[in-house]
C-alpha cells in the first residue's frame, strides 16, 4: 500500500517553497499498547527525497520522533513549470511518491 502525500508548491524569484502533508502513523516502536502490555510495532518513514526535474535536491532521514501525519516544508531552487517530486519510504518497506508542476 502506498503512502499518501499531498503537496503544494509555488515558485517566487527562483526559489520554491514545497509543502507536503503525508498520511502516516509514524509509530516509533516505543509507545505501549496498554491492553496487551506490548509496544506497538515500529512503523515510521525513514527516508525522504525531494527532486527537481529528476535531479535530487534534498535527502532526508527521519526517526520515529517526527509527528504522526508529518508535515514538511522545504525550499528548492526551481522556477514555474519545473517538476518537483517527493518520494519516501518507511521502515517496513512501504513507499509513496507525489509530484507537482510549479506554478
Amino acid at each position: 500500500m502506498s503512502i499518501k502525500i499531498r503537496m503544494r508548491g509555488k515558485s517566487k524569484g527562483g526559489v520554491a517553497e514545497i509543502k507536503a502533508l503525508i498520511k502516516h502513523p509514524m509509530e516509533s516502536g516505543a509507545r505501549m499498547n496498554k491492553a496487551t502490555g506490548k509496544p506497538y510495532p515500529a512503523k515510521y518513514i525513514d527516508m525522504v527525497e525531494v527532486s527537481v526535474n529528476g535531479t535530487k535536491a534534498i535527502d532526508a532521514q527521519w526517526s520515529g520522533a517526527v509527528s504522526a501525519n508529518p508535515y514538511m516544508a522545504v525550499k528548492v531552487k526551481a522556477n514555474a513549470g519545473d517538476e518537483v517530486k517527493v518520494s519516501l519510504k518507511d521502515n517496513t518497506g512501504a513507499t509513496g511518491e507525489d509530484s507537482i508542476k510549479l506554478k
Partner: protein
Amino acid sequence: MKRRSFLKGTLATGAAAVAVNAGLLTPSTVLAADWNAKAFGAKTTDDALNAVFGSANATASGDVQLKAPAIAENGAVTPVTVDASGIDGVESIAILASKNPMPMVCEYTFGAGAVGYVSTRIKMGETMNVIAVVNAGGKLLKAEQEVKVTIGGCGG
C-alpha cells in the same frame, strides 16, 4: 518414526539456508543500509551529533534561525522551523530534541538545487531544548531553544 521426522527437519532448514545463500531472502537490514541507525539510536545529543557529523562541537550562531513555540500544548506535534538560508554552502541540517530517549529527530542533506530551510513537526516527551545543527562547509553551527511541553508526545 523419530528418525523420519528428524530427516524432514534437516531437509527443511537446509532448503532455507540455500535460499538465503542464493539471495532469495535478503535480510531486511540490507534495505536500510543508508539509514544512519547509529545516529538515530544514540541516547545523547553528543553521540548523535558525532554519528552524523563526526563532531559534537557546534558553535552557537545567530544565522541559524530556529523557530519553535515557547510553550507547546501538545508535545506530539511541536512545529519546528530551521532557516539557515542566510548561510552559504549549507550541506545539512539536523534537528534534535535534547531529552527524548533518542534525541536525533531528523536530518536533511541538501544538494545544489536546495535552500537550507526546513519546517516540520516533531514529538517531544517533556519540557526540553530543541537543537538545530547546521553543517555549512564543514563548520557546525547551532541554535537552541527551550520548549515547555504541557502534554507529552511519547507514549501516554
